[in-house]
């Protein structure tokens, strides 16, 4: 007897859950039904991301590193699934390696990017990097998994929470990554993933007053990028502009994507004479 086919609808990932779009809409892409997010899904995702900031930024760097390493373990276990979704094997491997690489940075970035400053007074003066808060990310369209990992991991490893707008034409790997994260001890709301039309949802994310930063890595339309940057200026969001030239996502990323979403806190501690 033949089985009934179990057809999968690829859903959003908000606050650790997989809801359909509030609007009830979906679209056909990569031969699958995928949720088409609305502005209200953006709003819900921001609420979830904001709620997660306290716990995630307050967790020890060591703990964040452990959780991200756990995500890499789960990614490894799902390797074949990503390949079946059409991701080149080399990119899947590179994405897992990239994730491990960023996980390792969690308790090292403060040593590299922070500093003990010599000052002209009896103070121990310390600069330490702090997460910016809620970061909106537009994922790169060219590289569905490696590109996505390369923008999400550096934002969250330092303690930020993110709302990711997945690549419009290749969302399946992104939703599968969300399924990996949901089983990785990553607290709900640290990563929120919306599928659908970037041109429709990104303006709401850029104008949202409770979002602290924007990463426009995946915006390829210059006019849209400009309008997003203008909307972001309303509450002085930190904005990482779209790359000027095509990015080779397999190249060494450096620490720039982590430091882009860090604030420097400087402490003056009296030390006597």
């Amino acid at each position, binding site marked *: 007897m033949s089985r009934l086919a179990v057809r999968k609808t690829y859903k959003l990932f908000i606050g650790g859950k997989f809801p359909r779009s509030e609007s009830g809409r979906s679209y056909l892409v990569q031969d699958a039904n995928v949720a088409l997010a609305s502005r209200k899904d953006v709003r819900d995702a921001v609420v979830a991301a904001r709620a997660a900031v306290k716990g995630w930024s307050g967790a020890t760097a060591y703990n964040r590193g452990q959780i991200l390493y756990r995500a890499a373990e789960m990614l490894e276990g799902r390797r074949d699934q990503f390949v079946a979704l059409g991701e080149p094997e080399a990119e899947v491997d590179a994405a897992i390696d990239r994730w491990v690489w960023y996980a390792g940075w969690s308790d090292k970035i403060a040593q590299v990017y922070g500093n003990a400053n010599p000052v002209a007074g009896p103070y121990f003066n310390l600069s330490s990097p702090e997460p910016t808060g809620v970061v909106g990310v537009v994922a790169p369209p060219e590289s569905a998994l490696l590109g996505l990992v390369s923008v999400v991991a550096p934002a969250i490893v330092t303690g930020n929470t993110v709302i990711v707008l997945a690549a419009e034409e290749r969302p399946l790997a992104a939703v599968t990554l969300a399924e990996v994260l949901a089983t990785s001890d990553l607290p709900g709301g640290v990563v929120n993933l919306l599928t659908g039309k970037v041109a429709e949802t990104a303006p709401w994310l850029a104008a949202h007053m*409770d979002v602290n930063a924007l990463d426009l890595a995946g915006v390829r339309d210059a006019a849209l990028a400009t309008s997003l940057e203008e909307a972001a200026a309303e509450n002085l969001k930190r904005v990482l502009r779209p790359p000027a030239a095509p990015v080779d996502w397999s190249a060494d990323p450096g620490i720039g994507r982590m430091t882009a979403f860090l604030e420097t806190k400087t402490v003056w501690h009296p030390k006597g004479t």
Partner: protein
Amino acid sequence: MLSTRSIKTTAKAWAIDLAIRMVDLTTLEGADTPGKVRALSAKARRPDPADPSCPAVAALCVYPSMVPVASEALRGSGVHLASVATAFPSGQAPIEVKLADTKAAVAAGADEIDMVINRGAFLSGRYQEVYDEIVAVKDACGGAHLKVILETGELATYDNVRRASWLAMLAGGDFIKTSTGKVPVAATLPVTLVMLEAVRDFRGASGRQVGVKPAGGIRTTKDAIKYLVVVNETAGADWLDPDWFRFGASTLLNDLLMQRTKLKTGHYSGPDYFTVD
């Protein structure tokens, strides 16, 4: 049905402003200080300092010891001053203490009193005792409006809620209120529906109109609009007025203000732009 996109644009703007005008801005914490009450009084007068078109709330609701401070801070604003009384929230005190509590709050400047009924007596079937107590407190209120808190979360059944509603109305209560906010189950839509049916039927029978105040657990604009729809469809448009329907709330106001700002500016607002209280 009410949870999705049924009320939008101008209707939503109207509902939000009405809901703001219906809020009894409440602080009932052991840790309340005169400073906090003054800050909340300022918020009650001008909920959104950035927007002069934002209406004031209906009332400020505090403990009796904070009434003098609030009375001073609200003078001339038109915002009512409500005080809980009668050994809030348990109601477990001798009747003399309850009456003295009420009189002191009124004397200090409260023009609305939120009393709690004696649930112990009610649940044991000593209805006369509950009735007499409400009558005595109403008498002690003098000119102040009396809201009777039924604490529906402790009444167990809808029949009890309806019975307690009638008891409170017959004894002279000007408002019936769901909860103290101090027990796990506070205001729910079904309980409010039962109470709205009770005030509707009571007006039909006696000609006197009584108000309803759900309190506790109403935190979002969406919730508030659901209640307004139920008010309109159950009791009728006569109750869609701050004189006859109130929300006992503290966090609700900020969500209303955020939604109001969203409608005005066209983009989503954040909690950082409103006072934390």
